[in-house]
């Protein structure tokens, strides 16, 4: 019976649960789904990670290439993130050009890296004006069950921290480029920003880490990116208007999640080094 109601009247179904301050999947309103992080799962990539947020799965692979720097910025490398929402992850996505959601997500990743300054573009320089690193970051959603944004940012950060680049030297006189494949240096990642996404249900109730079902019923969303004790971004693209208190609550919750996620990344990285 319950399943029928869930299908026919999803809003009513959710309201009944939320009145009791619990979600249909046995979570509290402010509770994240279990987060599993696997670092270094793709051996052919320079850096990789797999994040599982409940059923949502995102894999991140980082490929590095050398290229000429952009004109006027001789010491800056580039970072090119791309989010792919493949048809394999959900029946809602069709093969072909990326849907708008994927384009916006990719742009969100660019802004995420840009504002948090976790990688200094100067650190990707090999030889000023001649050679720089280009990092192609591919984020592929394998299973879409809501909150891909948070899964993507977590996978992105974990993969970046796992990235090591071969040492490349340029001979000043001859201009020869030499790659030392045996020696690797890891990428310097200065900070660890974490994003936390909330949705608004029925214009009033805030839920953290929404599933796909919850996202479909949502009347708005808020994403807060924290980095240590600072905010990197408060992003609310329209939706139901919220009071200042509600947004501040989101921010407070995001700080807690930020700490958890940072610990998850560092501890998991430690387990590899052991």
């Amino acid at each position, binding site marked *: 019976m319950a399943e029928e109601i869930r299908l026919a009247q999803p809003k009513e179904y959710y309201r009944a649960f939320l009145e009791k*301050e619990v979600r249909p999947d046995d979570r*509290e309103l402010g509770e*994240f789904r*279990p987060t599993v992080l696997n670092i270094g799962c793709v051996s052919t990539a320079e850096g990789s990670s797999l994040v599982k947020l409940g059923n949502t799965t995102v894999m991140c692979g980082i490929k590095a290439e050398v290229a000429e720097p952009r004109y006027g910025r001789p010491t800056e490398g580039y970072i090119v993130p791309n989010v792919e929402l493949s048809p394999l992850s959900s029946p809602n996505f069709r093969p072909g050009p990326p849907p708008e959601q994927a384009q916006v997500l990719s742009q969100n990743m660019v802004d995420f890296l840009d504002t948090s300054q976790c990688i200094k573009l100067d650190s990707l320089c090999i030889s000023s004006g001649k050679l720089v690193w280009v990092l192609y970051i591919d984020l592929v959603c394998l299973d879409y069950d809501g909150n891909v944004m948070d899964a993507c940012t977590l996978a992105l950060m974990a993969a970046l921290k796992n990235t090591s680049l071969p040492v490349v030297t340029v001979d000043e006189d001859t201009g020869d480029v030499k790659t030392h494949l045996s020696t690797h240096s890891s990428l310097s990642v200065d900070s660890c920003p974490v994003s936390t996404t*909330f949705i608004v249900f029925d214009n009033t109730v805030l839920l*953290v880490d929404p599933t796909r079902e919850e996202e479909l019923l949502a009347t708005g969303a808020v994403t807060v990116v924290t980095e240590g004790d600072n905010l990197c971004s408060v992003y609310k693209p329209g939706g139901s208007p919220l009071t200042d208190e509600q947004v501040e609550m989101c921010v*407070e919750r995001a700080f807690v999640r930020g700490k958890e996620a940072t610990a*998850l990344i560092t501890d*998991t990285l430690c387990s590899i080094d052991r």
Partner: protein
Amino acid sequence: MRETPLSNCEKEFILNNIKEHRRLDGRNAYDYRDIRISFGVSLGCCHVEMGKTKVLAQVSCEVGQPKQTRPHDGVLFVNVELSPMASPAFEQGRPSEESVELSRLMERCLKESRCVDLESLCIVSGEKVWHVRVDIHVLNHEGNILDCSSIAAISALAHFKRPDVSVQGEEITIHPLEEKDPVGLSIHHMPLLVSFSFFLQGKYLLVDPSEKEEKVMDGKMVIGMNKHREICTLQVTGQNLLLKDQVLRCSSIAVTKVTKTTELIVQALENDKQARLRGEKHGFAEQISSEKVTSNHWRETQVKVKEEVMSASGGSGAESEDVDSDMEAGSGDSQTDAARLKDVEPNVDIVARGVGAIGEGGASRWLDLPKTTQTSKNKGKLKRSHPEETEVKQEYDEDSEEETQTVLNGVQ
């Protein structure tokens, strides 16, 4: 969105008027509508109004590689945008036949007439040249987009200035606008397009057709010409055959039109230059007259910041007072909880080498996580009403040392 087609009686009405040498807006057959040319604050930004037809053109440039066949020449690119902005008949995305024709004509007018000196756009031969791009956006389609676009494009090109470049050996420096005065493009001549529409098998001829007249016309002839009476392009479309006389008559009309319009452009460019030199306000905002009922203008406003806002924001924490009791209790609690939670070390399960996990609950079909032996589940309790509060607090105290609490008060 589909456009409302013109009804038969409307068509007949317009045609009958043309037969009697009258036009809907009271113009004579060879009259242009009023042309207004204005420039924006940024260089190479031009807005042209022809009656109610409005077109915006912007010229931009970037450094790029030359074409392999022409290593010493810069590149000029022309793009005409017909979007639903201008008229509901235009569709977003795919270019219609009309827009392809328009782009092609503009390209012929600007590129193939060689009005812009492309050789002067070369920085290092075969390696680096300027790519100049003209974007033409049609804002309002009330007929004769073509003439309007060509005026906008050539005015924008004449208005535009690119940053100065100096080459020393292999080193190329592009000087920002603040550092060195920018350089204008060298424009050899100003080709303009003039359209003529023909009615009733070429018997009647109108200059600058309005949107309704364009829908009724049999055919169209476009002449591209500069003020030196040189024809750059000529195109006849539609289902009518023209006599030699008609073509000659059109070209002599075009001469007068082009001369007048060129004067107008030169005048507008001069006015803008003078305004800039005098340091006066220029740009689009200044062009809107506040004498109209449809426009409104406010000088810079100082917003009085309320006392309590500043004091509240100056103080620490969000202790807003005007919240209902429910929220107050909630936000107060979440503050303290969050503060407490910040001190709690998150507990990360290392499941395998390189695999870590936090949190539990919720569906995950991916892998069986070893259940933690702790009895108290890692869950944020949500408190709302006062009686529960003490109980909840106790629970927090119990497991505050063990695991992360995730608390969010979301119910209002």
